[in-house]
């Protein structure tokens, strides 16, 4: 998932002809002062981080004088708001809000859903808790979309006054089209405001796009465990974006057994089993790549982790993908680095097309444990745990 910042979302909405307040993103106090001076009727200044609940975090300021904008910017830059560092602030014209509502679209499972509430400007979770009947939730049929007529009915159902219904209906229809065409997972408008002229203004906007191939490093889709990626994780994430040929991911954990596992399900089974049997993974990986350069970046990251003391190379039995392209880069790296396989155990369970070539290369690595064809996966996990724990006994004696 890739959460957009407010300026990015509003740019997209504006391009679709939707009503958003005029604003700009700036990265210094001086630029904030200049920007604020443009808005004679006052402005709103917000930390430009891709997260909601900024008001509660003290990251939203009402600005009446340009100097206030400079001071607020000075204060916000460099702060951490909900895990994101503030590098820019967003300043926009202040809308005179006569009334405000809530609207969102989301696609988690099938079908996509639309949520409307009469109560805008508050968290929808709070409305659900305190006033659930104020929330209208509707399934969206992807073959029909959200027509202006249907949306008008939904707003009426939510208890919105007649005079606003048609304008809200039209805006809702267009917003759904943006949500769909951008490949968004969520689009939240909170508040949807009615301004002093009785016109709709999309004041609060949040959009998250899907990232099915994990091509963005700084978003929720890239595993970060609530922390910034470390140097090794960043290398893998960047190679995932920059090199062709399938997807790969790498997440460091606090154990000592390196996992070069892949193929969605199998790596997860192995990780579960390792924990159940008392082993501690140094990382998790998932990858579908057979690009040798990409495989090498991943293998280097696993071996560069200072905590790693053993390695399990084990995918599901390949039916189509060639395993030599995955095993050989690892074997080459172990050779180049003169890894002593007595002190750094490596267990390989890789079967399928290309297996003879993969085995041949591993024959040059004395001490490597390339398991016999079709050995159960449980044996591979148990063996690497055993070999790694024997290192401790060796060190103790």
């Amino acid at each position: 998932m890739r959460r957009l910042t407010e300026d990015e979302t509003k740019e997209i909405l504006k391009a679709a002809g939707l009503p958003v307040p005029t604003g700009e993103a700036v990265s210094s106090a001086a630029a904030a002062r200049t920007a604020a001076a443009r808005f004679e009727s006052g402005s709103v200044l917000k930390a430009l981080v891709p997260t909601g609940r900024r008001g509660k975090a003290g990251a939203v300021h009402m600005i009446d004088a340009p100097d206030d904008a400079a001071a607020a910017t000075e204060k916000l830059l460099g702060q951490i708001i909900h895990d994101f560092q503030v590098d820019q602030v967003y300043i926009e014209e202040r809308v005179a809000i006569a009334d405000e509502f809530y609207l969102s679209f989301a696609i988690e499972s099938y079908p996509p859903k639309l949520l409307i509430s009469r109560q805008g400007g508050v968290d929808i979770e709070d409305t659900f808790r305190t006033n659930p009947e104020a929330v209208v939730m509707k399934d969206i049929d992807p073959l029909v979309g959200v027509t202006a007529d249907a949306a008008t009915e939904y707003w009426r159902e939510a208890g919105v006054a007649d005079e606003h219904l048609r304008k809200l209906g039209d805006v809702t229809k267009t917003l759904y089209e943006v949500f769909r065409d951008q490949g968004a997972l969520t689009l939240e408008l909170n508040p949807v405001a009615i301004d002093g002229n009785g016109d709709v203004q999309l004041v609060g906007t949040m959009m998250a796009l899907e990232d099915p191939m994990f091509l963005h490093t700084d978003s929720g889709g890239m595993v970060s465990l609530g922390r910034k990626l470390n140097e090794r994780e960043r290398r893998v994430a960047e190679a995932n974006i920059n090199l062709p040929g399938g997807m790969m991911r790498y997440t460091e954990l606090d154990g000592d057994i390196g996992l070069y596992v892949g193929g969605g399900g199998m790596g997860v089974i192995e990780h579960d089993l390792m924990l159940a049997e008392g082993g501690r993974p140094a990382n998790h990986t998932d990858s579908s790549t057979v690009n040798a350069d990409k495989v090498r970046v991943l293998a280097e990251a696993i071996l560069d982790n200072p905590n790693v003391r053993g390695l399990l190379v084990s995918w599901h039995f390949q039916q189509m993908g060639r395993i030599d392209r995955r095993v050989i880069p690892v074997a080459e790296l172990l050779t180049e680095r003169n890894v002593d396989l007595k002190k750094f155990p490596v267990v390989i369970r890789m079967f399928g097309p290309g297996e003879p070539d993969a085995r041949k290369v591993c024959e040059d690595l004395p001490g490597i444990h390339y398991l016999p064809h079709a050995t159960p996966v449980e044996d591979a996990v148990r063996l690497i745990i055993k070999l790694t724990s024997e290192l401790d006994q060796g060190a103790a004696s």
Partner: protein
Amino acid sequence: MSILVDGATRVLIQGITGTQGRRHTEFSIDYGTNVVAGVTPGKAGQDVRGVPVFDTVADAVAETGAEATVLYVPAAAVPSAVEDAVAAGIKLIVGTSEGISRQQAAYFRALTEAKGARLVGFNTTGVLSAGEAKLGGIGGEVSDFLYPRGRIGVCSRSGGLTGEIGLAMKQDGYGISTALAMGGDWITGTPMVEYVRLFEQDPDTDAIILFGETGTDNELEVAEHLVANGMKKPVIALLAGRFQENYPPGISFGHAAAMIGNDKQTISAKAKALTDAGAAVIATLEEVPWRLRDFGVRPSN
């Protein structure tokens, strides 16, 4: 004997002249699949291993009576490929592409449901009915080794696990009726519970093995179905991803959808729901034949 596909099913390959389409078509024919036609616009009149190529799905269906299709088209051509197949009256579509967005997947599901067609995938390796036919790359060069013939149905969210489950059963004499990968995406054309229903109705399937993951409601829907209708055949669910509960929600370690969206989508919650519904929940492959024996399912080989 099987669900979805058997040796008589008349199969179309969309994108048959591409590298992947051609390679998988050859494996499928070698396996015994009744591949009757291929489609690549602009290449009508050519053939791939004797299979005639047509410009449009409509032509292919009119000439050959194709009833199922496998898509090996580039990502940008996927929407048209699905629409063309549905419009031509194809009833089973196997979507192999990875990286299909949720918005697109929702559209494909709505479209196929509205037209009475079934979509397997996307992001699937396919469907294999042992000794009969296969749709998609499933089995590849090692179909007979990983999918011995038998009477156990397999539905997996991971393509790799269909083969590993076959391998795990084989030593104990169990084999496959049909094995299929439903796709690891958030939204698939067909949910897991639909495949369970098909296996329940198949006279040649004695037990059902599922591979489930963190995220999505697929396994919970199966549990609800078993509670509401009773467990008609033994269900064994191999569930992976307990370790993800040690980390914050919203993180995917495996398939894009293998992520804890809410606290009902954890492995613990799914294991409880399925266990309460009478299914056997396991965490390792070695337990597959043990649980089949516990249920009194007899090996077929």
